[in-house]
């Protein structure tokens, strides 16, 4: 095994990075993949909460970096989902406690034994983001159909390109089909046209996400929810499958257009 490192990032906060990291991890693990999720948001950790593993934290990533424990000791194994592990962030430290080279070292130590390492990046373009970007093999940029989120995504994509971590792939989260239909939301096609990177997922707005977050149970385990399905599809695309995009009643044949835009030149690993 030689794990690929996926970094989930966005620039703007609250767009769904943590939700996507947790669910991508759970979905990949449910396909018999060995997955480690790393919470890169030191000082504001919450990936553990979304995964429902908060009460099992003993050591965190700063303990690893500062030599208080071995890497394996800081890894929490998810008892419900075989093959899923979490390395939690420290709650009480700031982002400078970890450096980009620490992250590279930790990922390199994990690579031989796992299939995927997924890093949940903090918002912003500062140290925490640089830490999350440093070891990345692939970068997923998350945005919402909102002008400010798209603007930040563009900025992040630019930095990713400058750091030669690109081309990043795009996940658009919280699409509201009813609003799109009314023309009250920036359309997916406009976002893709502006950001000009490959689209790898579209996730609808879905109140089940909040319910599952509160329960600490990844929504991909809920086969009926649309968001869960969309996240499952992203996981399959990550593994190289060619999965068509969900039809979210988006009028105007958008998904056909997207299909045309991306069926050629899609980067599958």
């Amino acid at each position, binding site marked *: 095994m030689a794990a690929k490192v996926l970094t989930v990032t966005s620039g703007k906060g609250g767009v769904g990075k943590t939700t996507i990291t947790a669910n991508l991890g759970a979905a990949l693990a449910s396909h018999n993949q060995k997955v480690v999720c790393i919470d890169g948001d030191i000082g504001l950790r919450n990936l553990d909460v979304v995964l429902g593993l908060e009460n099992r934290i003993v050591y965190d990533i700063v303990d690893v970096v500062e030599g208080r424990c071995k890497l394996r000791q800081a890894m929490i194994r998810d008892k419900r989902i075989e093959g899923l592990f979490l390395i939690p962030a420290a709650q009480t430290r700031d982002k400078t406690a970890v450096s980009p080279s620490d992250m590279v070292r930790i990922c390199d130590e994990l690579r031989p034994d796992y299939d995927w390492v997924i890093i949940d990046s903090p918002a912003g373009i500062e140290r925490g983001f640089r830490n999350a970007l440093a070891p990345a093999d692939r970068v997923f940029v998350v945005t919402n159909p909102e002008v400010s989120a798209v603007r930040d995504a563009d900025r992040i994509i630019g930095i990713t390109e400058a750091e030669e971590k690109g081309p990043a792939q795009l996940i658009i989260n919280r699409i509201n089909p009813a609003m799109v239909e009314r023309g009250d939301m920036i359309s997916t096609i406009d976002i893709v046209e*502006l950001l*000009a990177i490959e689209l790898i997922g579209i996730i609808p707005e879905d109140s089940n996400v909040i319910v599952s977050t509160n329960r600490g149970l990844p929504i991909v385990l809920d086969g009926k929810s649309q968001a869960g399905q969309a996240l499952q599809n992203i996981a399959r695309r990550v593994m190289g499958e060619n999965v068509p995009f969900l039809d979210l009643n988006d009028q105007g044949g958008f998904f056909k257009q997207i299909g045309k835009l991306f069926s050629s030149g899609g980067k599958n690993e």
Partner: protein
Amino acid sequence: MNPNIEIKGISEGLLATIGEGDWTEIRQALLELIQTQADFFKGADLTLNVGDHEIKAADLGKLRDQISENDVILRGLISKSPRTEENAKSLGLTTHFERPQPERSGKAFDTSVGGDEAIFVQRTLRSGNNIIYPGHVVVIGDVNPGAEIISGGNIIVWGRLRGTVHAGASGDETALVCALELAPTQLRIAETVSITPSSKKKPKPEVASLKDGQVIAEVWDIHKSKK
């Protein structure tokens, strides 16, 4: 903008060509220009072409100091007056520029056409990217919202222009901005600012220029633009 000062980009930095008129007034105007357009001039190497003006060594030294207070370095001085040139040399300023002469091709007429300094960029300019350049700027690709171009001359975008652009940033009111889709967040030519009204119509190539102190955008007309 003082009509007696013309700024353009050259390979050595910026060239300010001084026209006729009262030297003390022009000198003052030059300093004001550098101050008001600090964004543009900051860090630049400046060469003055003073033409016939006679400038004393002490005055020149003082001017150099005043210019350097704005983070601009006076590197060279071109003058028609041998005395002024001597004064410039004594201050260590470059007074001659090697201009590569176009090779004579043996033809009866020189058919080559000169041009101005420009920078060519082939990529998408994303939010947070910027280009600051004394000459013209040519981009093949989109200029996204949040990206910025500041040019001493014209700005040509072969793509969608949605970011912020400032053409003629050193005061050139004849500067143009062209784009296949002209929808900038903000567009400035010399000192004049305009904001594009959002429109839903099908984009067409457009040219923006200053007419009677206002920025006007016109659809690119192949027939009209032939001069």
